[in-house]
């Protein structure tokens, strides 16, 4: 009898884990139809390097396999980082000029016909004053050469440029908040919001989120994808659960490392009548991951 109960509990936990994994790798579960291959592409899309002043970074290969002839501009731009980890370029004239003091990109423009490819030369000039690292995006901005009347388009690809100098310090940071968000009756997102309090970018190592009932068994656990967080920015690292949670109190733990810092945080929340989430002082609402 004891064995049967154990098996039942195991099945429940496994089901939750499977639901969790389904959320983490949703695209791999569905069978993708054949995508149209023509595209304007850059590779690599992220350059993470340790470099000295004046060093050339890995060239970025730009390929136009679309049937459209594009006028393409290439330039560096300073960036903000959003909570979901994406970069947004800073487009004020002063900021664009500042980016050109950090990185040089050649060529600066080119008409790219169908099948055209080129290698962008990216040179790290220097970090900003009193800094040991520089952050920007290599912007590839394409406009169709022939623009007809009506609604047209412009394409922008952002390649991340993350450069530390050899004497840059190690990253350090902390978990600023634990967060929970109900996305639907049977869909939850759990996040640890990591604040990079250091002077260089970094990636959380061994980050793990664990959800359990208060004083009870583990309901779910998972390892969020360890994407980069820039200095001075915050980023949400989360897992999703595609399963309803019974009423009760829950504890969400996060553990991991970030450079020299050990990450450890705990948040508490409740699921109340109507399957609604009620957060406490230790957990907040909203999750960008």
């Amino acid at each position, binding site marked *: 009898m004891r064995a049967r109960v154990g098996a039942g509990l195991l099945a429940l936990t496994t089901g939750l884990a499977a639901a969790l994994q389904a959320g983490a*790798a*949703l*695209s*791999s*579960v*569905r069978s*993708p*139809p054949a*995508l*149209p291959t*023509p*595209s*304007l*592409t*850059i*590779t*690599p*899309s*992220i350059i993470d390097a340790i470099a000295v002043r004046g060093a050339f970074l890995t060239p970025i290969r730009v390929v136009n396999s*679309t049937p*459209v002839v594009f006028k393409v501009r290439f330039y560096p731009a300073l960036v903000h980082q*959003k909570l*979901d*980890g*994406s*970069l*947004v*370029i800073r487009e004020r004239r002063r900021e664009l000029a500042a980016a050109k003091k950090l990185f040089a990109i050649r060529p600066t423009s080119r008409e790219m016909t169908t099948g055209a490819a080129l290698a962008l030369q990216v040179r790290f000039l220097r970090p900003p004053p009193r800094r040991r690292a520089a952050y920007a*995006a290599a912007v590839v901005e394409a*406009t169709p050469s022939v*623009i*007809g*009347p*009506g*609604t*047209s*388009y*412009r*394409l*922008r*690809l*952002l*390649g*991340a440029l993350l450069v530390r100098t050899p004497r840059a310090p190690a990253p350090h940071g902390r978990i600023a908040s634990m967060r929970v968000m109900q996305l639907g009756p049977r869909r939850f997102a759990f996040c640890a919001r990591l604040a990079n309090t250091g002077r260089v970018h970094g990636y959380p190592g061994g980050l793990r989120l664990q959800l359990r009932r208060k004083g009870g068994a583990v309901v779910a656990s998972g390892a969020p*994808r360890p*994407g980069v967080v820039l200095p001075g920015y915050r980023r949400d690292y989360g897992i999703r659960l595609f399963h309803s949670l019974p009423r009760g109190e829950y504890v969400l733990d996060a553990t991991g490392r970030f450079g020299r810092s050990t990450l450890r945080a705990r948040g508490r929340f409740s699921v109340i009548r109507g399957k609604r989430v009620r957060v406490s002082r230790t957990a907040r609402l909203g999750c960008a991951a």
Partner: protein
Amino acid sequence: MKPLVKLSILAAVAAAAVLTMPAGAGADSQPVSGTVLSLLGISVSGPVALTNFAPGQTATGSGTVTVTSTGPWVLRLADGDTTNPGHLLRTAGTGGASALAQALGWTATPTLGGTGGSGTLSGTTQVAASGTLSNLINVGYSQTIGATEQLQSGNVYGLTVTWTVSST
């Protein structure tokens, strides 16, 4: 079947396999593998022509955006025009309104998982969609045109949507 008999049958099958193997095909193997590079790409289905474009109507149009990516991405859209962002401007013809009163509405729906969005186009970048790997996003546009808007037959109104994709 006794275990000893079963074992001798297996030995005979193995010996026959060795005898039928071509000379030189035995020892070496050549592993072949490839490591995926970080790649980011984008393409759109082309300019969009809105149909039903007349006063008192809601003009609509659709297209697709393809994001090719080997990692998570976020797709944003904005209107780069600084004078009247989000609004279709007269690009051909004379007379009538120089710009539409209402901003262009949009929806973005990824077809391979991920998260879509909807909103009204403006000069500020908005998140249209996000996902983990390559995806095809259906994009719909809708333009509400007031019944008293001064539109002249044959004139063309348009704007340029800027699509920006970045890795996360």
